[in-house]
């Protein structure tokens, strides 16, 4: 395809929210088997889960709703983003941070135990551009690994910039290096550049698209930067939700087109569509 033609398509596809932009994928409510529960830090772990059948189509940026058993204060499911998908093995990986009693209970789950998930949920990233930058902060970076995998399959050139507290909080480093050019900032300088992602020199380069996941202040800062450079920037919102599949209307984000459900229209939004960004 001619570059000019592709640029026109880029602009059209980046245009604002449309409920129908993403074809609706079938949702499932099924048990997975825990293959591995890998501790990264005392409050951060990766669950590798085996699906007993062929995994349905899952898009990067989508999430699951996990049923936590054995903790009576965790009444609702926990929404958790999909860190990685292994289509050959029919496995998915979830990166989980302990934030409350539900995720604390979940962190104790053992190999061989069952975990009930509703999946895949949400819209997922719009993959577009020839050269893209992924920016992740802390455990919020979780959905970027699977995004990198899909970008690589589509031969899209990528750089990934991860900001984290220190080297101990840097997860999936080997995978990032295999799939992309990894750049890191740490708050204490224990790995990569010392400081925050917004000061990293990679930002000076030109990109067609930025994908950003992490704490809200970081996503806002990146979105401001992207706006100045006129680069479309996708962000992933983590709003509190009761259901995760569009019926409770609790997780709304304020957009230029009114309140939209984060779990259906999002969690990935073009930052310029969001009122607070």
């Amino acid at each position, binding site marked *: 395809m001619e570059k000019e033609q592709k640029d026109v398509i880029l602009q059209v596809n980046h245009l604002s929210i449309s409920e129908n932009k993403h074809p609706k994928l079938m949702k499932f409510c099924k048990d997975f088997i825990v293959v591995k529960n890998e501790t990264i830090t005392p409050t951060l772990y990766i669950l590798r889960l085996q699906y007993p059948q062929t995994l349905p189509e899952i898009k990067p940026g989508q999430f699951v709703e996990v*049923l936590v058993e054995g903790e009576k204060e965790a009444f609702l499911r926990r929404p958790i983003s999909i860190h990685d998908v292994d289509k050959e093995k029919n496995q998915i990986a979830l990166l989980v941070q302990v934030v409350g009693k539900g995720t604390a209970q979940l962190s104790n789950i053992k190999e061989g135990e069952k975990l009930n998930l509703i999946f895949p949920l949400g819209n997922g990233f719009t993959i577009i551009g020839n050269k893209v930058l992924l920016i992740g902060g802390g455990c919020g970076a979780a959905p970027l690994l699977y995004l990198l995998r899909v970008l690589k399959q589509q031969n899209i050139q990528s750089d990934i910039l991860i900001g984290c507290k220190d080297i101990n909080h840097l997860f999936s480093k080997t995978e990032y290096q295999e799939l992309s050019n990894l750049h890191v900032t740490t708050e204490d300088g224990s790995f990569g550049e010392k400081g925050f992602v917004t000061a990293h020199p990679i930002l000076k380069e030109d990109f067609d698209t930025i994908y950003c996941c992490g704490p809200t202040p970081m996503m806002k800062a990146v979105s401001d930067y992207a706006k100045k450079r006129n680069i479309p920037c996708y962000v992933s919102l983590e709003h509190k939700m*009761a259901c995760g599949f569009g*019926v*409770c*209307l*609790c997780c*709304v984000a304020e957009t230029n087109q009114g309140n939209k459900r984060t779990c259906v229209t999002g969690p990935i939004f073009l930052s310029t569509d969001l009122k607070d960004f």
Partner: protein
Amino acid sequence: MNTTQHLEVKINNMLLRNPVMTASGTFGYGYDFEDFLSLDSLGGIIVKGTTGTERQGNPYPRMAETPSGMLNAVGLQNKGVDYFCNKIYPKLKDKKTNVIVNVSGSTIEEYVEVATKINSLENIPAIELNISCPNVKEGGMAFGTSKEMAFRVVSAVRKAYGKTLIVKLSPNVTNIVEIAKASEDAGADALSLINTLLGMAVDAEKREPLLSTITGGLSGPAVKPVALRCVWQVAKQTKLPLIGIGGIINAQDAIEFILVGATAIQVGTANFINPSITEEIVKGMEEYLQRHNIKHISDIRGII
């Protein structure tokens, strides 16, 4: 005798293949659940609260998890009755279950307007008049917490609406029986109860409320004892068929509501956790009847 006959019930002249329905605001417009269950297996679905014009609802955050339940402060976000009639009804009209519209408003005129428009939709056999929403500034619960106001709004809607009129009652009153009787006198065909209980949640660390509106509606198993008490009290004092709602998460819970006088039940918050829970409840109720050698669900209705 097949499954449906054991569980078949009637609300006014509306036939339900079983007593299990879904509560408004917890089931969208039904089609969000079709990946998980067959709508045709349910007694009915009550779709999201519908108002005269589009509403954006309350600001985020609108939800807080609480022990055995949750608070919500959605505030009737919906696209309005015309959108429902033109865009949503065509997708629902051929479903083989009872599709019931929850009718909400801020004024009597608005309730009447919505009810009139829904009355013209052939395949909607009933409306549920929501005089009990705790999350809107005007109307809503204000109509459901005074017997005079309840009588006025139900009478006005009764004149405009010819099919089965269900009135949804609020538990946030000193005497729910009074409101139930006022609704009966005004021409209601059935009552559904309870709507959510007004509550609040606080974040001690941040020293702020968890909901943008400060207060919200409590639902989930936490409210079941209150709901059972309300249904039992109202069942003793009115002749109307009752639809029990409040914290039902399994067939045992559903049976409890039947025992205290409900003809049918609605499942709400549990739909969020297990989207096929309603089908499981139908099966569980059937098993209960077999296990206790009961011929028909109505044989145990109101025996407490």
